[in-house]
């Protein structure tokens, strides 16, 4: 309460717009300084041009895939995205029937989530592609650290729950892949997921940890009631969706609490 009252009354609005601090000019500059995903350059003048290129690139790849008969009209859009991405990475398998790699599954999960959020297929593809690229490049080092961080924060928040997980030896079996590699795609509904991914795209992959912690805290009673690692994992993989908004809000609060306010203010 006190903290809230101390904060500028406009901060809520600012946060909504994406500002961390009250000094909007600085915040704006920080916001506009660089393009987080790299889909469009920061310069407005070149947006049309670049977007045209992006579209053409999308069309070219799609056309190429169709030419080599990798995709057809019947192929699900998500798989089309996957094949396009594979082609761009040069990882396109020799045949569409080859089994998918785990990373492809991750891609598919993310793509499915993004597809729900974005209507235009070109935008969708680019967002997926850049998001995955960001995960693969920018967070390559930090993602494997997240489970440890998760343990640490969980300990801070609720050590009893952590010890319960440890006694169940469920700690190492938690769905880290779902949480950190897929960034909760398929775990949270898209509306909530958007808020989490905003942070991730903005450069904080730690928010994932807090969402995970918050999920555990929210379903603490149920998790405590379950005694086997498999059951816990199964439950966490299929958490009820109705409370997801609350989870994300709390997770963001938790993130503010532990990592201080804005990343860019530091």
């Amino acid at each position, binding site marked *: 309460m006190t903290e809230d009252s101390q904060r500028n009354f406009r901060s809520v609005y600012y946060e909504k717009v994406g500002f961390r601090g009250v000094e909007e000019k600085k915040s704006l500059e920080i916001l506009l300084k660089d*393009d987080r995903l790299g889909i469009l350059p920061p310069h407005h*003048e070149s947006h049309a041009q*670049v977007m045209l290129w992006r579209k053409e*690139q999308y069309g*070219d*790849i799609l056309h190429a895939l169709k030419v*080599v008969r990798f995709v057809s009209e019947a192929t699900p859009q998500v798989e089309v995205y996957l094949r396009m991405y594979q082609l761009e990475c040069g990882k396109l398998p*020799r045949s569409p029937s080859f089994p998918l790699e785990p990373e492809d599954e991750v891609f598919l999960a993310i793509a499915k989530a993004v597809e729900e959020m974005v209507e235009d297929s070109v935008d969708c593809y680019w967002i997926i592609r850049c998001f995955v690229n960001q995960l693969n490049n920018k967070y390559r080092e930090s993602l494997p650290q997240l489970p440890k961080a998760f343990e640490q924060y969980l300990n801070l928040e609720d050590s009893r729950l952590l010890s319960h997980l440890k006694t169940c030896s469920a700690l190492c079996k938690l769905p880290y892949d779902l949480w950190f590699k897929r960034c909760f795609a398929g775990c949270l509904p898209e509306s909530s997921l958007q808020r989490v991914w905003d942070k991730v795209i903005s450069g904080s992959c730690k928010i994932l940890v807090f969402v995970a912690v918050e999920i555990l805290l929210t379903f603490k009673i149920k998790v405590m009631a379950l005694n086997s690692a498999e059951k816990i994992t199964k439950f966490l993989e299929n958490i009820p969706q109705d409370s997801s908004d609350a989870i994300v809000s709390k997770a963001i609060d938790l993130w503010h609490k532990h990592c201080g306010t804005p990343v860019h203010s530091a």
Partner: protein
Amino acid sequence: MAQQANIGELLSMLDSPVLSVRDDVTAVFKENLSSDRGPMLVNTLVDYYLETDSQPVLHILTTLQEPHDKHLLDKMNDCVGRAASRLPALSLLGHVIRLQPPWKHKLSQAPLLPSLLKCLKMDTDVIVLTTGVLVLITMLPMIPQSGKQHLHDFFDIFGRLSSWCLKKPGHVTEVYLVHLHASVYALFHRLYGMYPCNFVSFLRSHYSMKENLDTFEEVVRPMMEHVRIHPELVTGSKDHELDPRRWKRLETHDVVIECAKISLDPTEASYEDGGDSVSPQVSARFPHRAADMAASPYIDTQNSCGSATSTPYSSSRLTLLHTPGQPPQALSPPSTRLLTEPPQATLWSPSMVCGMTTPPTSPGNVPPDLSHPYSKVFGTTGGKGTPLGTPATSPPPAPLCHPDDYVHPSVLQTTATPPRKEERTDSSRPCLHRQHHLPNDRGLELSGGKGSVTLSDLPGFLGDLASEEDSVEKDKEEAAISKELSEITTADAELLVPRGGFDSPFYRDSLPGCPRKTHSAASGAQGASVNPEPLNSSLDKLGPDTPKQAFTPIDLPCGGASDSPAGTREHQTPLETSILTPSPCKIPPQRGVGFGRGQPPPYDHLFEVALPKTAHHFVSKKTKELLKKAKGNTEEDYPPSASPVEVLDRLIQQGADAHSKELSKLSLPSKSVDWTHFGGSPPSDEIRTLRNQLLLLHNQLLYERFKRQQHALRNRRLLRRVTRAAALEEHNAAMKDQLKLQEKDIQIWKVSLQKEQARSSQLQEQRDTMVSQLHSQIRQLQHDREEFYNQSQELQTKLEDCRNMIAELRLELKKANSKVCHTELLLSQVSQKLSNSESVQQQMEFLNRQLLVLGEVNELYLEQLQNKHSDTTKEVEMMKAAYRKELEKNRSHLLQQNQRLDTSQKRILELESHLAKKDHLLLEQKKYLEDVKLQARGQLQAAESRYEAQKRITQVFELEILDLYGRLEKDGLLKKLEEEKAEAAEAAEERLACCKDGCSDSVTGHNEEASGHNGETKPPRPGGVRGGGGSRGSGSGELSTPEKPPSQRAGPFSSRWETTMGESATSIPTTVGSLPSSKSFLGMKARELFRNKSESQCDEDSVTIRSLSETLKTELGKDPGTEGKAPLSLDGPHPSPPTPDSVGPLHIMDYNETHHEHREG
């Protein structure tokens, strides 16, 4: 009381012989009944009927209307309760229900039913029992739903009576027992037909008891051998068959037919088969065409007629039909027992059948209607047959067009001689025999054994027959297989019949004592054959035997007819026999005509009666008795309008009366044939027995008639279907005609369609040629258009080039102009400064000169002073004044100098601020530059990603192509496809190149621009080194279109460029270029400014800016060759050595030099 008396009077008047009186009285009664609702009148009537057996009363009672039914039933119930009136009450009940009054459904609730059942269970009188059972059997189909309550009573009655048949409690006469047996069989049939499941379960439980086993073996089992398995046993259940809903949709006649269906009895079953099961095959037109009757259409018609003969008409008609029909039997064996009558057949038509099937069902209201088609038909047939003959023998009281029923009796009456008693017996006997053997091979036996029996043998033969009385079972067995044998039997019968015919005359001849026997036999056999000549038309076809047969008997009757005027009664008897004989089941008996001469055992025929098709026997037997007893007994009160049935009934009754009357006169045929023959008086017991038998037979006859009525009902319904089917067929035919018409239409349409198609194809061809022409034109035009397009493209590119050049040149012009302006400004400033400094120099020169002059004057004065010591003071003073003056002068001079210094300092400040502005501008420029750089980088990244993507796509394509090649090679098609491969590879390369070009277009364009600027600057350099301005022209030409050789148009531009550049190279640079070389403060500042610029250029690789600055430098720099070193050399203390060109102007500028020169100078 008065009323009572009145009623009594009226009742007695009812029996008045005067028809009109009777009618009146009947009307009065009916009126009374309609007005009076009380039970009194009905009770009186019933009592009276029970007392007198009065027919009119019976008629009234049977047509009682609704409110009186209850009284009637109550009354009858009452009577049934009393043993004395039980029998007449039962027979009354039988009469009533046979007419199916509208209130018949109430019977099931009436107390009469239980009391009837009770009576059947308790009574020991066989006659009562038989009558009661027959009544019950008649009633059952009317109230099938009553089975629910009384089923067990029915079964109990059956159980009791069946055991009676065997055990014969008390001293029951065998004769009666046979009747009882027959009725029990009928009951069995009905119960099994209506409630098979319940009945079978009853049989199972009842006869599983040991004490009943005998009864079962002896009585029930033979019965069971004559029925087929009831389908309900398979599909139904006990509850289902008692379900009222099951019965609701069945009418009485339906139930009767249902029951008949399950019979295996050849005759019974034969009509049943024809009735329903076969009808679908015959398309319902000839519902009675049974499988074995399929011989000829005549038979069908005959069947349809015959089976419809429940009415008196039909029966009488049958007499006619039958007579000619018998001969056909001989000719057409497959027709078996059914008579085929050609004339009848020819007359047959659907409408006639329809007409025939609509006779009134109740004999009560049967006034013959001439307008009815059937009556006409029969009238005509009758006319053909009998009536034609009758006029010859005797004048018939009835006209030809009279209804058959009436005609026939009259005919018979006239033609038939009153047969004597013996004859009657004889005739009846054969009938009995016939019936006996009818179903089967018994006939064969007879044909073999008995057929040849002569009169002399007769008594013995009869004795044999009598001994066969208990062979009922045998009979039945034979009946069971009679179907298979029917053909054989008929074949035999053919033989037998004529023989019989021969026999009888023969017999008569040989035994003159009883000549009429033959006649009666013949007449009994063929009632209508009495008139042989008229029938010849039909008989001709029948073969030679028949006429003979027909003739012989007739002669005598004819003669006899005149003998006995009282023959009415007796005439009817032959009619009766004949009436019944024609019906399908009765035909066989006639075969036996010749054989059954002897007196049969009295009950023998009753076994036949016991079978369902008994009525005819019954009648024949009755006739026999009547003829025996009532010969000569005439009753003239026979109402001419009475229906044959009534006539029949009355006949029987009167016969019975006659019998009793004649008892004393005549001996009766009894068990012992001897008595009859020898005139011994029969025991009184015998008389009673015979009377009872008569009664029983009458009952059975009535029962059979009832059954026939039901058949008639059914036939009517079936024939309605026939008409409907015919109508539908006609409709079908009409539809077919329509269809044909429409097909024709379709044909016409098809032809026109073909024509239209041909025309359209022609038009299509024309259109095609037009189209191809137009296409070629279009192609031509397109080709032209393409050429033009290409040309315009070329021109466009040229135009574009020119525009580019112009734009560049303009840009350069602008730059140059700005430079010129700038330099002009600088120049003016510098020239101002120059003029200032020049004036200052001049002043200084002047002052210096003055100073020199004053110094010389001073030396001069000093010399003068030294020379003139004396006036030193003066000199000193003068010198002092001069010094003062000079000091003042110097001071003012100094002041002037200070002022000048101030102005220059101000000027410096001004310039410095200017410099700061410039710096700021530069900074902004840098920022913008960075911005642009970022933008370019972003775009570059996007482009790169595109390029990467394209590269990947190409890789994928290559992979795919290689894969495809691999496959192609594998397929061994390599040789063929080598060329294609090369082509494909080329195409792929081309495409790749295209893709690369496409994607890198913008980037390279940018680069090209940059390099273009570079190129622009470079060429001038060497030119500058050589000092030749002309070489620049070519450089600039190259620059504008690097790829293309410089076009000629570029000439003017380049020349103009040349000139401008030349100018700038000659005049402007020298002045500007002097700036850096000067060591003045201004020069220093300018140098700094440029150094900053160049430094920033060094830091950033923004190509445009560098090129700009470079051009600037090259233009400004005195030595373009050392341009690269310029930044370094600028820092150096000494400016680069001036070129010869710029030396001149620099002289003016070089402050030190001029000063030096001045000094030197």
